[in-house]
């Protein structure tokens, strides 16, 4: 308490210096006068009295000095003095200060941006209560990895038999049509069990969640997202209880979820739901092969993931015994929800973090190098300060203060840059990245930035500070400023920095080059369809009139396709149940002589239902045979078109035409005859090679969701209005999604890779720029120290070309060592990088040699300017000056 009081007193003391100084002077003067008066009273002459009093005082100025030390906070005052001095020093050479601050700002900004992404996506907990207890439950073939959704009857069995879960629920994301008031609108929706909402555990902002009873009785109830409530229903305060049209039927709104709530997204391409409706699930055993419900469970308190995993595996084993026909080839496993939701971004993020750490190291090396060069010109200053009594610690402290000041400026500039960078990055982020909204610069990120800034300042200042503090005063004073020999070890240190910078820059640049090559490989993958001038609009035919009614759906689609083809500019129009590159629908078939065997695991085959014109509209080439004839499908017999991969897989070499396929079931309820083979189209993404696919005629299915594919001679999106009108003219309750070009679909498939690649390229560019600054600085410094040597050489007849060659050779030699080290480092890291690449080896010699040459070029560039300056040295003047 006493100590605190004294501290505050002293803190105040800092601000009243002048007045207190005046008062002290007066007080001491009084003391002296009283002493003199007393001395006179005891019989001295005034002169003697004054002399004796002064003698006795023990030195008035000394007393003032001690008093001042006690009054303020000497440490703080010294720090302020150091800071002032540092500011003066830094302002004296704005160019190198600018280079140092700029380097640091870029390095700090880059790491701050990537950290904010890391924090938002990887570190922050999922936005649900006690998120660590949430797990996803998947099925999979035994001894294989995979994430297969549950079937409806399986869901009931797992839920009832498991002992690990407080609650287990299922969801399937399905877009829905909102009709009724206003234009019909298609919004992302979630068909989910009431138990899922309880498992996730977020209470609604208004109203309530729906209940098991409502679900069991198939009541038409719906939950809205906050955004949808605001946007479509104008934030109606009486929304709860209101009836709205969903998929052509009235639903009662029971609640509104909180603003910003996102339902868990378990698959890559999913977007967050805007409405939640109960899924009317069935326990019918006939559904045991239909895997479509993603399960999320909330673990009971104290139950481990391993226990839950074991639990579901045992249930799966029991079900396999109980239902051998459908379930003998099904196991199950549990996965933490968070690990699942960040699975695709985790690795690239760590990769990018590695790159920015390297970038920051390069920028620190730049600062260290610049400070070193600066300290070279200050031997005289340091020597004078040291001989005036400044201790080594004081000199080192001065240098560290300078560095911290530099770092502070770099940190502030970097933080500002990062705020801009994060905004930019959020705009660039692919829409399907999980939890993008959690990416922002908050207090923790700023704290991180401040920590990094301090560390960067100390780290880059330590070496220059220590070595300057060790300076030999005598020789420095004797030699004055520029010396021939001074700092042989300092040049060695700077050279080591350049070597390290080049090594790191090579690693980053090589990574960036590999990523770029991978990206080009990915977008260069033959898509098998013609993305130009093709566009897509998605429609879900819903409402009682269409549900389960293939004929009604076919009638709608036939009329729609006819009207769309009649639109000006349209060349062809077709329909399909699934789009290329956006994931698949699959099942298994028996091909030709294969026999049904419930214990055998058949490979999954992709399947699409399309209209005959689909292939032409999409630009998918026919390789053999023909396309199906409309109306050719009956209940017992179907014409089938397969892709190249199917033909290769099952009839390698021979023709597929005329061959038969059957459903994978005990009874051959229908037979498919292969009439044509078409070009492969990648189903899952550009990076997953095409798998066998079967196309069937659209009119043979009652699937409600379909995509309208239009090939046009005019910019495709101009057709948007015509398509909407065509749909409305047939059934005005149906909603049409926004039109996309197939080019956009194609780009979407490469979006994440493009994002990562662009960031890597940016970091590599920054790295190269910093390295140029670094080598320029070091070579300039070297040249400056050797001005005399250069002068002597020229006086002895060395030509300008010789001097340029000498300097450039010097710079290149330094960097060559770094490049070699970097190449070795890149090879050592190849196993880490490998999983990020596509179609290029992490040890690709072409890439690494190319990058090495690029860096050599950088070294040449960085040393050329100082070399030219060296060549302009006037031998007469330098020699005379020496």
């Amino acid at each position: 308490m006493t100590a605190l009081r004294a501290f505050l007193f002293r803190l105040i003391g800092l601000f009243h210096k002048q007045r207190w100084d005046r008062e002290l002077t007066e007080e001491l003067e009084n003391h002296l006068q009283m002493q003199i008066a007393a001395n006179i009273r005891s019989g001295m002459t005034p002169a003697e009295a004054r002399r004796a009093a002064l003698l006795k005082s023990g030195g008035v100025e000394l007393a003032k000095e001690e008093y001042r030390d006690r009054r303020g906070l000497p440490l703080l005052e010294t720090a302020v003095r150091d800071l002032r001095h540092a500011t003066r020093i830094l302002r004296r050479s704005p160019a190198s200060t600018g280079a140092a601050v700029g380097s640091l700002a870029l390095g700090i900004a880059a790491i701050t941006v990537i950290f904010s992404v890391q924090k938002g996506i990887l570190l922050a907990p999922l936005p649900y209560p006690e998120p660590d207890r949430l797990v996803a439950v998947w099925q999979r073939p035994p001894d294989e990895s995979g994430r297969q959704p549950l079937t409806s009857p399986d869901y009931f069995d797992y839920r009832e038999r498991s002992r690990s879960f407080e609650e287990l629920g299922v969801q399937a994301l399905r877009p829905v049509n909102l009709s009724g008031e206003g234009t019909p609108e298609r919004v992302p929706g979630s068909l989910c069990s009431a138990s899922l909402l309880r498992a996730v555990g977020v209470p609604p902002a208004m109203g309530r969640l729906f209940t098991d009873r409502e679900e069991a009785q198939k009541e038409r109830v719906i939950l809205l997202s906050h955004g949808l409530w605001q946007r479509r229903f104008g934030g109606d305060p009486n929304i709860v209880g209101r009836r709205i049209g969903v998929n052509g039927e009235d639903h009662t709104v029971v609640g509104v979820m909180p603003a910003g709530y996102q339902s868990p997204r378990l698959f890559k391409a999913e977007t967050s739901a805007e409405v939640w409706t109960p899924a009317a699930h069935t326990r019918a055993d006939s559904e045991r092969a239909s895997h479509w419900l993603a399960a999320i469970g909330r673990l009971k308190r104290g139950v481990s993931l391993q226990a839950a995993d074991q639990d579901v595996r045992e249930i799966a084993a029991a079900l396999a015994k109980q239902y051998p026909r459908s379930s003998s080839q099904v196991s199950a496993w549990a996965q933490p929800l968070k690990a699942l939701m960040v699975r695709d971004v985790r690795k690239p993020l760590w990769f990018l973090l590695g790159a920015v750490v390297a970038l920051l190291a390069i920028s620190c090396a730049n600062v260290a190098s610049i400070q070193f060069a600066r300290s070279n010109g200050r031997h005289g200053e340091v020597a004078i300060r040291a001989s005036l009594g400044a201790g080594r610690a004081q000199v080192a402290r001065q240098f560290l203060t300078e560095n911290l000041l530099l770092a502070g400026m770099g940190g502030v500039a970097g933080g500002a840059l990062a705020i801009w960078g994060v905004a930019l990055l959020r705009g660039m982020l692919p829409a399907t990245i999980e939890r993008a909204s959690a990416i922002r610069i908050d207090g923790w990120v700023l704290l991180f930035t401040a920590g990094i800034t301090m560390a960067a300042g100390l780290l880059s200042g330590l070496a220059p500070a220590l070595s300057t503090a060790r300076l030999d005063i005598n020789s420095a004073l004797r030699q004055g400023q520029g010396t021939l020999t001074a700092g042989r070890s300092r040049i060695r240190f700077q050279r080591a920095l350049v070597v390290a910078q080049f090594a790191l820059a090579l690693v980053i640049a090589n990574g960036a080059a590999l990523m770029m090559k991978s990206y080009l490989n990915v977008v260069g993958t033959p898509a098998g369809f013609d993305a130009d001038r093709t566009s897509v609009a998605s429609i879900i035919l819903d409402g009682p009139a269409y549900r389960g009614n293939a004929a009604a759906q076919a009638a709608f689609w036939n009329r729609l396709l006819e009207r769309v083809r009649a639109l000006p500019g349209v060349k062809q129009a077709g329909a399909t149940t699934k789009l290329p590159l956006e994931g698949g629908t699959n099942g298994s078939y028996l091909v030709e002589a294969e026999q049904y065997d419930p214990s055998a695991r058949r490979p999954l085959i992709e399947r699409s239902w399309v209209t005959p014109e689909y292939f032409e509209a999409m630009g998918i080439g026919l390789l053999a045979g023909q396309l199906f004839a409309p109306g050719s499908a009956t209940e017992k017999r179907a014409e089938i078109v397969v892709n190249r991969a199917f033909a290769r897989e099952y009839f390698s070499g021979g023709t597929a035409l005329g061959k038969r396929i059957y459903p994978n079931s005990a009874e051959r309820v229908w037979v498919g005859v292969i009439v044509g083979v078409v070009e492969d189209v990648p189903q899952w993404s550009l990076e997953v090679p095409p798998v066998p696919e079967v196309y069937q005629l659209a009119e043979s299915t009652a699937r409600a969701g379909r995509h309208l594919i239009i090939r046009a001679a005019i910019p495709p999106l101009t057709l948007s209005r015509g398509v909407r009108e065509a749909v409305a003219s047939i059934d005005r309750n149906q909603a049409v999604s926004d039109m996309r070009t197939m080019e956009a679909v194609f780009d979407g498939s490469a979006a994440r890779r493009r994002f990562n690649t662009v960031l890597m390229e940016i970091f590599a560019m920054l790295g190269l720029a910093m390295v140029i600054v670094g080598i320029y600085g070091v070579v300039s410094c070297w040249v400056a120290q050797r001005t005399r040597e250069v002068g002597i050489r020229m006086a002895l007849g060395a030509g300008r070309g010789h001097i340029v060659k000498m300097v450039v050779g010097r710079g290149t030699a330094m960097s060559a060592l770094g490049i070699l080290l970097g190449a070795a480092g890149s090879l050592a890291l190849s196993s880490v990088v490998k999983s990020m690449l596509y179609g290029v080896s992490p040890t690709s010699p072409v890439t690494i040699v190319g990058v090495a040459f690029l860096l050599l070029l950088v070294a040449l560039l960085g040393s050329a300017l100082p070399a030219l300056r060296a060549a302009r040295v006037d031998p007469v003047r330098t020699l005379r000056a020496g």
Partner: protein
Amino acid sequence: MAEKSDVWQGTLALMVLKTLDTLGPLHGYGIARRIEQTSGDLLEVRYGTLYPALLKLEQEGFIAAEWGISDNNRRAKYYTLTRAGKKQLAKEAREWDQIAAIIARFLSPSEEAS
């Protein structure tokens, strides 16, 4: 040197407190005079020790300072003992007595023999 001045500083603080307790409000010169006289002129109080010590006591809240008019009509800074200072004085005096008693026991050989 540092050690010696510390001990000196500690005892000086006690002497200042005691002086102010005995004589009431007093200026720096008066305090110095009183300490020197009491010590039988064995001690000499320099400005450089006295004024920082006074400042420290003021910062710690044991004494308060105020400008007043001295006997010879000059403006002078007067120091007064505060309540906290009184307590501190009692405490330090007690501690000092204890130390003195302990040291005295060590130094008297007769008691050791008995």
